[in-house]
């Protein structure tokens, strides 16, 4: 199975240095901002489509909390072709089921998805207002193959007369289109020139 080779894609904690790079990247783009910029940091930088904005977050509020720059940076646009291939979570492979009927029971999902391997974890979250199933489930399998066959066999099938969709929950990240944003020169700087040996 070719896709298994993606199992070693690393998911690491991001650190502040990376954030800074992203921020500089975004700041370098001219932003003529036709809509009032949110005082709170919007990640959609340099976008030129006019947008209907609403809320006090767009207001200048001197009594506001600390600047948020230190926490999340800007950047991250959807200029990509796909979101890459599935990745492994710490203890297994996570599958997302959507279109789950509000009356669905954990047992039924266990039965349906247990056919492809032992379900190690199942989250069937409830709507906080109604108390019924919110409409999705997250399922953990030990192996890639188990998750993959569940997706293959159950995606598009019916559960409680409801069409369900089954897909990976996590993936390796966007595969960028060619010649969109150029890479930050700062990144290149970190690579030291090849050393010549004598």
């Amino acid at each position, binding site marked *: 199975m070719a896709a298994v080779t993606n199992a070693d894609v690393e*998911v690491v*904690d*991001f650190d502040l240095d990376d954030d800074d790079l992203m921020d500089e990247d975004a700041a370098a783009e001219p932003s003529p901002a036709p*809509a009032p910029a*949110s*005082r*709170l940091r*919007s*990640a*959609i930088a340099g*976008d030129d*489509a*006019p*947008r*209907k*904005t*609403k*809320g*006090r*977050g767009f207001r200048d*509020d001197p009594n*506001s*909390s*600390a600047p*948020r720059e230190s*926490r*999340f940076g800007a950047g*991250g646009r*959807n*200029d*990509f072709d796909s*979101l*890459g291939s*599935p*990745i492994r*979570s*710490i*203890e297994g492979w*996570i599958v*997302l089921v*959507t279109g789950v009927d509000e009356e669905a029971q954990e047992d039924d999902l266990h039965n349906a998805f247990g056919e492809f391997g032992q379900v190690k974890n199942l*989250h069937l*979250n*409830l*709507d*906080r*207002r109604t108390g019924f199933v*919110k*409409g*999705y489930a*997250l399922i*953990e399998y030990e192996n890639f193959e188990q998750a993959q066959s569940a997706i293959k066999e159950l995606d598009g099938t019916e559960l409680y007369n409801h069409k369900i*969709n089954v*897909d*990976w*929950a*996590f*993936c390796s*990240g*966007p595969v960028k289109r060619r010649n969109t944003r150029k890479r930050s020169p700062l990144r290149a700087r970190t690579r030291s020139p090849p050393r010549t040996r004598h």
Partner: protein
Amino acid sequence: MATGGGDTGNDEFYLRYYVGHKGKFGHEFLEFEFRPDGKLRYANNSNYKNDTMIRKEVFVSPSVLREARRIIHESDIMKEDDGNWPEPDRIGRQELEIVMGNEHISFTTSKIGSLVDVQSSKDPEGLRIFYYLVQDLKCFVFSLINLHFKIKPIQS
């Protein structure tokens, strides 16, 4: 699968939620963000008992983004306005920022302890939608973070 907003795949989508306050244990907050490229970022900080900041990030699949959009869309939050909601105060602050299609909301309000606070506000209808949506989104994100990283997010 189209959820009123037309093509749910490539439309612009961004979501950020923040709840926090500054007090005895420093700046304690919880924040998560779904970026248009699928990156889910999560941060949780408390200095209580020398706890340190937890920061996690992972890319989620388009299906996860679609589900987040569905939850938001069905809540009708985009039709609300925070004009009559309680202002953020010393007890705390919540921020909800969403970009969907050509709509961009950035709402702020105080912390909401319970439905009593919602009922006694000037806009109980709108605030209730916010109150439940935030819980549903947190629930979704906590499950994702919990299953992927095997950490138990703590309520802030």
